[in-house]
């Protein structure tokens, strides 16, 4: 029989039992929709994490002292006085894939000014730090290269510090006191929000590293050096270059060079596991939907025994009957899958609208969902269809 005729026969028989077909397809619809919503939410979470990490600067390379394992190691690493300003100058002068490099001197102390005092993190950095972190100011300007050279007492404050010390006013030009030194505020950084590790990125005061080492620490070694490559693709080459340079000058591997994508990969893989878990739970409803199809097809075969007998008497082969019932269950599966696709899509959008979660459903995912529901139709339709095809025409004709 022509495939066109087969599909016509199948849709006819579905149309004759609209309510039953709709209820049968409901299982598939809910299953496909549930899987899509879960995968959509998971995909959204992944892309949000990716964005957060990108906000740190994907081209950023972090150099810390001590050959440590990956992960949070800053406390231990600071104990090793391996990195120095000389290393920064060497990287700036010789590494060709590195576009910007900045030392980071970290200190935690109280800042006095405006409304009162505020305990925060003080970072002594170079002017290039702004470029490396890709961090614009919301008012005023970042300090420049000459401020660093001259060791001027200027500072750029994060938005959290600005809100707490100067609520409701523009702090640019105002003065703050750190330890015994007075600093002029050159600018306020635009809010960056939470960092990937959950800290408030905006609770910070930045000042030239030269000033910081004079007024705060007096130490000559650096807890961290930040650098950035021209593009994400250049990051591995830049990392390798930095390693080679530092190995030359240190004569040992007493440092660690990491990039942001390592962090991104780790965070993404954990959400991927979560998404898979959710999708696996949701696909159980798809399985239940498949069993629903099988159930209805078995009922349908029994109910239409006489019809099968008639068809066989007038010359239908077993394979004709098998194909007819199989096409019927596949059409139900695909139809249910398509409706489920629409419902899942709308559901994901709705969920995103009410919760503010971003949801991402890829075209590939849609294709898989519909393909899978067709496969469910074949798998669960085969047994009833075979049962129909194996009927004896004489007995089928006599069936009441």
């Amino acid at each position, binding site marked *: *029989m*022509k495939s066109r*005729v087969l599909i016509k026969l199948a849709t*006819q028989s579905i149309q*004759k039992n609209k309510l039953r077909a709709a209820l049968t397809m409901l299982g598939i619809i809910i299953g496909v929709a549930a899987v899509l919503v879960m995968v959509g939410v998971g995909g959204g979470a992944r892309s949000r994490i990716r964005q957060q990490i990108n906000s740190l600067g994907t081209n950023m390379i972090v150099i810390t002292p001590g050959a440590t394992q990956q992960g949070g190691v800053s406390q231990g690493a600071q104990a090793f006085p391996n990195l120095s300003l000389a290393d920064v100058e060497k990287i700036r002068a010789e590494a060709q894939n590195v576009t910007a490099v900045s030392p980071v001197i970290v200190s935690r102390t109280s800042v006095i000014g405006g409304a009162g005092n505020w305990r925060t993190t003080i970072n002594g950095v170079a002017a290039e730090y702004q470029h490396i972190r890709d961090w614009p100011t919301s008012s005023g300007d970042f300090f420049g290269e000459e401020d660093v050279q001259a060791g001027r007492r200027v500072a750029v404050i994060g938005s959290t510090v600005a809100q707490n010390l100067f609520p409701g006013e523009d702090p640019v030009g105002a003065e703050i006191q750190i330890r015994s030194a007075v600093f002029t505020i050159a600018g306020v950084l635009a809010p960056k929000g939470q960092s990937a590790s959950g800290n408030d990125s905006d609770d910070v005061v930045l000042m030239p590293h030269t000033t910081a080492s004079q007024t705060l620490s007096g130490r000559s070694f650096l807890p961290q050096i930040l650098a950035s490559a021209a593009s994400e693709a250049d990051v591995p080459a830049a990392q390798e270059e930095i390693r080679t340079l530092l190995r030359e000058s240190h004569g040992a591997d007493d440092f660690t060079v990491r990039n942001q994508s390592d962090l991104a990969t780790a965070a993404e893989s954990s959400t991927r596991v979560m998404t898979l878990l959710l999708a696996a739970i949701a696909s159980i409803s798809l399985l239940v939907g498949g069993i629903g199809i099988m159930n209805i097809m078995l009922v349908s075969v029994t109910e239409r025994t*006489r*019809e099968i*007998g*008639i*068809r*066989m*008497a*007038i*010359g*239908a*082969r*077993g*394979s*004709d009957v098998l194909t007819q019932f199989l096409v019927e269950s596949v059409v139900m599966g695909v139809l249910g899958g398509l409706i489920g696709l629409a419902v899942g899509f709308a559901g994901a959008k709705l969920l995103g609208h009410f919760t503010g979660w971003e949801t991402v459903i890829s075209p590939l995912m849609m294709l898989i969902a519909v393909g899978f529901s067709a496969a469910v139709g074949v798998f669960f339709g085969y047994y009833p269809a075979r049962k129909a095809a194996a009927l004896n*025409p*004489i007995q089928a*004709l006599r069936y009441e």
Partner: protein
Amino acid sequence: MSVIRTEQLVKTYESGTTSVHALRGVDLTVAKGEFVAIMGTSGSGKSTLMNLLGCLDTPTSGAYAIDGVSVEGLDRNQLADLRNQKIGFVFQGFNLLPRTTALDNVELPMLYDRRGARKRDTRALAAAALDRVGLGDRVDHQPSELSGGQQQRVAIARALVTDPALILADEPTGNLDTHTSTEVMALFQELNEQGITILVVTHEPDVAAYAKRIVEVRDGRIRRDQPVRNRRSAAYDLEHFEEREVA
């Protein structure tokens, strides 16, 4: 060439330890253009004979050839093709597909034809067959919208449409009143006049009287096989139907 030729046809059903001998050796030959009535009471074996002649079942022993094709050794698929190509069935319960138009019902056997139905205009052929049984104006009606006599005529159109060697009718008037039965038999007589071979299985002598030859089956054997002497014309009976009822 005979349309039907059987030699010592035997069918035995095994049920547990006992065997039921439904047919005990039937020799039957039907030539082209014949109109045969097979009669017998229930349990006589006439249903078994009809299943074998209709290629719905295979004999335990003996030979059967329809239109020159022997059924010996044929598998399920080959029997299905044989039914499709050689036989047109008409049943007591009409056996039309419910919620399916008359035209779709009549078209159905051509859709299962593996010889080249693709090239033919099956819709036009189905419409022509319905026209032939006088239902040209009922093509879009579903069985539930048709009377019993009309449904049986749709079934006859479905049997005719493949141009079969044999029309096999199993109690075709069993569910119909006398007047409608006579109408259906008139249609069979008309088709037989046009050269179509018809075999009717019935237990009603009134119906058998419209055939040209009566074969009586009893206890799995043919007891009587003779031509009908005072053959009735269904068309004539219809014309004088009311006089008959009064008489």
